[in-house]
């Protein structure tokens, strides 16, 4: 059983190079191996989830080096849940990419996809801060390749911006890790927790700086205001199936915040007490506000969905920044919901953009307009947080977790107002996309040769019905949302147990450091 913990990292690490080297000229074989790998990852993730259900924490020591000296992978409820979420998201996204033909519009899609999964899953499983940095780099370098998949000058330029922004983030990450190491002399998270808690309260300048720098790094990943500038341009210009996979990448930032600031710099730790939540809450509220205004002001469908991903990160981080077990449980539920929803909306956006271009202007009706508008409607309901889908439950949980907080009225006002703005923005976009198209007097816009993102790839592809696989995978994501709504009780029970485990890190520390 213990060896299975490393399987989610090893499997894509083997399949990726195999696709790259052995079958690089066989696109059908690449598809088979890529899908097989993701299906297998789902099975592994389910087994890991099953084993973490009883609340036990399991440790895999790389090279059999005991904990503070070697790197460990740790499986607890939180990691198991995030691994399951990643693999559940990866399968429909991969099937969509195959069904819509996106994977053949550039080279090495499947290999990069596997490396991306390896980085994300590794970041969720590792128990070592420097190893977390390495997995961040793995997932980033794969995302650079995926981001510019298919090419085009606008996409490449957005890609360069994205890379520069993230390289800066990586430098900051290294500086923060260096500062932490210079104070504590360790980088193992469990060991860090012990040593940070034992630091004298009067000599804390450097560790406080390091804690805030680390928060900045994770805030860049989670696209928290004012560090969100990379997200709209890169998500809107990335291939939409890739943007759908990137929906989990912002959650890696949120996961890292939740992990580091409950385990190492927890709410009870004297040296950094209250430091993080005080900064994070206003930033999260601003993120939510700016995201919803962005939805209202977006001129392209891709940017609209990207801004809606920012609003969902805002809501998620409000819940995280309260740092109570109840708010963490709400945050985890909302994280599952918002990942699936953002991915669903990105895939719907791709269906629309393939047919009529991404600009939010009236166009003649597109094929399969009814089906796509129904999907958009469902995604918009989930994103705005209206009943009956899981967004409503998620927002309700976040709000009720905010009730004991001293900032309760501010949080309520911001969350409810931005929900209204989001509804208006999504409605406006939907009515332009699907209703104004039936107006016969509207002329199609002239083809803009420069704008290689917004226009359909080829006229034949735009008019031909998309193979069923693409629709099946979009419906699979929708089914995931419905399941999350129906099974809200059991899922919430699991996230509550996860939050309990997070806010009582003694078991984690003792298991990793092998103390009886």
């Amino acid at each position: 059983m213990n060896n299975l913990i490393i399987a989610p990292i090893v499997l894509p690490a083997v399949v990726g190079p195999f696709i790259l080297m052995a079958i690089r000229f066989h696109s059908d074989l690449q598809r088979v191996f890529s899908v097989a790998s993701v299906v297998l990852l789902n099975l592994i993730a389910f087994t890991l989830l099953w084993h973490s259900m009883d609340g036990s924490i399991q440790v895999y020591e790389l090279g059999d080096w005991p904990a503070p000296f070697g790197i460990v992978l740790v499986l607890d409820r939180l990691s198991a849940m995030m691994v399951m979420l990643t693999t559940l998201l990866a399968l429909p996204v991969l099937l969509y990419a195959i069904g819509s033909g996106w994977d053949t519009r550039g080279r090495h899609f499947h290999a990069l996809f596997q490396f991306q999964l390896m980085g994300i899953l590794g970041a969720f499983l590792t128990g070592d801060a420097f190893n977390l940095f390495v997995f961040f780099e793995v997932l980033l370098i794969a995302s650079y390749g995926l981001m510019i998949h298919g090419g085009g000058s606008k996409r490449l330029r957005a890609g360069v911006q994205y890379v520069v922004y993230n390289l800066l983030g990586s430098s900051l990450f290294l500086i923060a890790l260096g500062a932490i190491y210079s104070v504590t002399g360790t980088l193992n998270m469990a060991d860090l927790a012990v040593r940070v808690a034992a630091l004298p309260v009067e000599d804390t300048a450097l560790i406080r700086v390091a804690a805030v720098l680390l928060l900045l790094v994770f805030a860049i990943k989670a696209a928290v205001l004012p560090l969100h500038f990379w997200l709209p341009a890169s998500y809107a210009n990335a291939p939409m199936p890739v943007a759908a996979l990137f929906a989990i990448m912002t959650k890696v930032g949120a996961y890292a915040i939740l992990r580091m600031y409950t385990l190492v710099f927890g709410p009870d730790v004297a040296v950094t007490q209250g430091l993080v939540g005080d900064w994070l809450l206003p930033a999260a509220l601003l993120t939510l506000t700016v995201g919803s205004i962005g939805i209202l002001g977006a001129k392209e469908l891709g940017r609209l969905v990207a801004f809606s991903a920012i609003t969902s990160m805002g809501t998620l981080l409000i819940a995280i920044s309260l740092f109570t077990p109840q708010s963490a449980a709400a945050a985890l539920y909302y994280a599952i919901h918002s990942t699936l929803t953002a991915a669903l909306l990105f895939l719907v956006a791709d269906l629309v953009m393939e047919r009529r271009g991404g600009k939010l202007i009236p166009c003649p009706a597109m094929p399969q307009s009814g089906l796509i508008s129904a999907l958009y409607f469902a995604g918009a309901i989930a994103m705005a947080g209206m009943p009956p889908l899981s967004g409503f439950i998620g927002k309700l949980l976040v709000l009720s977790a905010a009730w004991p907080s001293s900032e309760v009225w501010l949080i309520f006002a911001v969350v409810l107002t931005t929900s209204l703005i989001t509804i208006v923005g999504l409605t406006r976009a939907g009515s332009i996309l699907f209703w104004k198209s039936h107006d016969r007097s509207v002329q199609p816009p002239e083809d803009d040769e420069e704008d290689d993102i917004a226009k359909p790839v080829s006229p034949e592809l735009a008019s031909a019905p998309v193979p069923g696989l693409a629709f099946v995978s979009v419906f699979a994501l929708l089914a995931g949302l419905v399941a999350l709504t129906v099974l809200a009780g059991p899922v919430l029970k699991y996230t509550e147990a996860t939050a309990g485990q997070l806010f009582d890190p003694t078991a984690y520390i003792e298991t990793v450091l092998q103390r009886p």
Partner: protein
Amino acid sequence: MEILLASAVGILTAGGIYLILRQRTFPVILGLSILSYAVNLFLFATGRLALNQPPILSEHATGYTDPIPQALVLTAIVISFGMTAVVLMMALSAYLAARDDRIDMSDDKGEDA
């Protein structure tokens, strides 16, 4: 020696950040590499400065220097080397596709051409 190392890290960081804020991709990439030098020097210093000491414990040596920062720096160097290569290739292809190496994106169509 501390002041020398600290000011070297500081100057490299300042220069790197100045270059990153430039408009063209080439200075930005140079800035990123300079920043990664600064980060690597800083990582070295986190193990405390020790001269002429072996990185392992032995009976003959009077002391030792912390080997972990050196391993970290090695990892960081490898990663930043790979990243620089990637960003160079992307910047180059963006330049060749757009005939323009400005790093910011403007909505102005005339600029994009």
